């Protein structure tokens, strides 16, 4: 199966919610030293819901597309709901099959999110 699906490539080439938030409620940085992928995440929380989210970073197409897709998903979602998101959810959200080496790239943005909520 080709992991460079239209969805992945679209988000890699045109990332959504890319940038930073001036006064975020919380921010996190996560780094995968083995390949140098890096995701920075800013969120604005209001009444326990994510009202704004921005990410920036560098890395492979999978980690960057995953951050773009995940940030799109979390907008207006409640903290409690987001805490439950796991590996299986991310695989479904991205719609691709990933081997043990590349799954780390895909999960990096979720890890950054879990640090914040």
């Amino acid at each position, binding site marked *: 199966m080709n992991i*460079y699906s239209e969805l992945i490539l679209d988000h890699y080439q045109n990332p959504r919610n890319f940038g930073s938030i001036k006064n975020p409620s919380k921010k996190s940085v996560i780094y995968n*030293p*083995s*390949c*140098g*992928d890096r995701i920075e995440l800013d969120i604005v929380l209001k009444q326990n819901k994510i009202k704004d989210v921005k990410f920036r970073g560098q*890395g492979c197409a*999978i980690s960057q597309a995953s951050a773009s897709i995940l940030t799109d998903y979390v907008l207006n979602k409640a903290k409690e709901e987001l805490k439950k998101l796991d590996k299986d959810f991310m695989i479904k959200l991205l719609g691709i099959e990933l081997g043990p080496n590349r799954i780390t*790239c895909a999960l990096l943005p979720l890890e950054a999110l879990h640090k914040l909520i």
Partner: protein
Amino acid sequence: MDIKSINKNSRFFSTIKKDFPIFLNQPELVYLDSTATALKPKTVVDKLREYYEEYSANVFRGVYKISEKATEEYEDTRKIIGEFINAKKSEEIIFTRGSTESLNLVAYSMGRKIINQGDEIVTSIMEHHSNFVPWQVLAGENGGTFKVVDITDGGHLDIGLENIKYKNSKFKNLEQIITKKTKILTLTYISNVLGTINPIKEIIRLAKSINPKLIVVIDAAQAVPHLKIDVKNLGCDFLVFSSHKMLGPTGVGVLWGKYELLDEMFPFNFGGEMIQEVYIDKTIFKKPPHKFEAGTPHIAGVIALKEAVKYLEKIGIEKIRDYEIFLSGSLARWLEDEFKTKIKILGPDYGGYPEDRAGIISFTFGKYHPHDIAQILDGEQIAVRAGHHCAMPLHNRLGINASVRASFYIYNTIEDVSKLVKGLKKVEIILR
């Protein structure tokens, strides 16, 4: 080499795939990761099977026939390896689990004994982690100083090599690095990322003229499969390499050391087969090499390693080296023609002295991440390595997180080079 002999060589090497059973199962495989591990010829696989099916007894223990046969086969490899690298005697050959264990053994059994407060250990920024971390930790534990030789922008060790290598002048900078306090100099023969072949012999000669008591350790994991090694001629004190990078089984490594040094060293592991006599209050150890081979070794692996040596010797290391220069030089020129400056090859310039380079080409490609490049190439049945290749300090020095590495060995062909170039064009189309 002239065109005629290149063609003759290419024809010869294009028939080699048939000796490697993996290509029966993976006929489309373009294997460009021999720097990580080499594929295995049938003779090696058959020898592993022979041991397990015909005389799979333990070594040095039984008086029965199949144990004696296993011991003979095992010791025969020691003899063959000793001759292969021109050791003074086969007792200087110690079997380990790999280059990593060989280096750790030297750092532990010799390093801990001789490194004291203020003593220096010198290594380089182009080392594999296995020839970096053991010494860094040792220096930290014993209060020694850990000195790391930098590289030049040209990808050579920054010890004035460009001067001496090409103009026959002296290594000026080495005199500023090696001092009377330097106890250990440990260097790689060939960088597993840059492909640089270090002029080890000249470095050792000059380093020892500065400090005659200096112990020199050479990581030859990338060198033994590709260059003729003569430990007497090199003048080092220890040299390590791995079986699996030279067509042999995984799980076997070699440590060669000067016998007098090995004899003085403390054992690495204690247990079976490394003792002479054991009493309640004391133990007397065996002499090298057995002092360093506690427990049941990877018998089948050691026995089959000699088949790898025989295979390489039948072809001839010089012939292999010429062919690798041809393949990697072709790829370097091809990449430049097709991708211009978008692809940046790490290490010494190919235009200059190709004989200073091994058949290893690491590169970055525009903004594309090495993992994406390797993944897309995998879709085309092309196996390359992506990452920092166990050389994080070097990648930091180069200012990059990761690179893509294509490396060549005897079963590769010019068609493989062509497929890689095509695959990289596909990377551009997919990732844009």
